[in-house]
């Protein structure tokens, strides 16, 4: 077990060091994210749609596409000098590679969010009403889902490069169920849906903050576990 975590840590640190030296991924993610936010902010102004509603949705759009960018890079760097074979030949379980890459992608997305969330809050004039813990919870659960699915499929793209253009539609279609509660929870954090209205109407579930978070926990648990298990089967040569 100790060996397992040591090898996760080794791959994780390697990728972080590579990114710190090259500084390729994070700046691209931030520029893409800011562009998305900027376009949506302008559009919401032009169409005079309430910025409180568009803002939280803009956050998820930015996370999804910038996350994809990071995930695709995370295995593309291994392609140079056939580093992937080196990784595979290392005396570690293949699941270790998945977990380490997942952690790297998570950290990248978190760094990206630390910058983009304030940008969105300022440009859309969002008020958090002191719900920082809720916001961090939603962000972390969302990140785990996005990276869990994205890491597996970006590894597969490296095996067969011909479908790299399809990575976004594959990951988006799989993540679609999570986006409904995630957007709902984000809207509640920023007060776009008032607390007393949440769960009212003919919803089968009480669509409140707690159940949305519960759903995301379940989604992450199922997909990260399955992707982790399948990763070994995909990568084997």
């Amino acid at each position, binding site marked *: 077990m100790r060996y397992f975590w040591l090898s996760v840590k080794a791959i994780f640190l390697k990728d972080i060091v590579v990114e710190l030296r090259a500084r390729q991924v994070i700046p691209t993610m931030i520029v893409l994210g800011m562009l998305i936010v900027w376009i949506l902010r302008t559009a919401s102004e032009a169409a005079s749609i309430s910025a409180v509603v568009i803002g939280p949705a803009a956050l998820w759009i930015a996370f999804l596409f910038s996350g994809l960018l990071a995930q695709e890079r995370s295995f593309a760097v291994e392609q140079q000098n056939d580093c992937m074979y080196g990784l595979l030949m290392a005396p570690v379980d293949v699941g270790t590679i998945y977990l380490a890459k997942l952690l790297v992608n998570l950290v990248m997305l978190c760094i990206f969010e630390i910058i983009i969330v304030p940008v969105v809050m300022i440009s859309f004039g969002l008020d958090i009403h002191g719900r920082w813990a809720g916001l961090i919870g939603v962000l972390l659960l969302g990140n785990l889902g996005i990276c869990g699915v994205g890491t597996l499929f970006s590894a597969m793209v490296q095996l067969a490069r011909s479908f790299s253009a399809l990575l976004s*539609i594959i990951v988006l*279609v799989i993540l*679609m169920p999570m986006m*409904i509660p995630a957007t709902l929870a984000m809207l509640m954090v920023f007060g776009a849906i008032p607390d007393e209205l949440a769960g009212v109407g003919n919803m089968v579930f009480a*669509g409140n903050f707690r159940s949305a978070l519960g759903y995301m926990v379940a*989604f992450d648990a199922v997909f990260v576990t*399955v992707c982790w298990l*399948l990763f070994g089967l*995909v990568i084997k040569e």
Partner: protein
Amino acid sequence: MLLASTWMALMLGQIEPVQRNIIYAHIPSSICALLCFVVVLVASIGYLRTSKPQWDIVASAAAEVGTILATVLNLTGMIFSRAEWGVWWTPSPRLISAGLLWFLYVVYLILRSSIRGPRYLQARVCAVFGIIAFLDVPMVYISARFIPDVHRANFSFETGPQKLALFMGIGAIMILSAVFIWLKTDILRDQNKLERESAS
């Protein structure tokens, strides 16, 4: 059987207004589209466990039949929805689930047709997608419940002929799908053989 069920539905099992009769095509295709997904799942797991190309061929055939059924499901659903609620589409839980089902199938087929390279690689990537896509179906069914529902919980079929026509319809479409999957499997197997022979 398909003809008999259509005849029974239209002659004996008429539901008013007339557009609602499309339910006789809607329910069977929804059940069979889901069953095709189960076939894709089983075949995908089978392929990943054994690496035998037969499993991959079955998954491919079932996905194609499933796509057609999911298209029928969504189109008939849209017509029904227009007759019932006056809108072609609305984001209600079941409509979202059915829509995602269609998207998953279409992405699966696009994925399958766009992977170049060794055959085993294509099969493996598709099998992984098939398994994960299947897990997505219950997930979207639950998550769509966060949105208010307009869909009728259960369509009631009052008379005997109506029920019988529906069950015959379900049976007929199931058999039809199975035959199509079988035929498509055969075609793909021959195609594979041909490719192998022309390569060697």
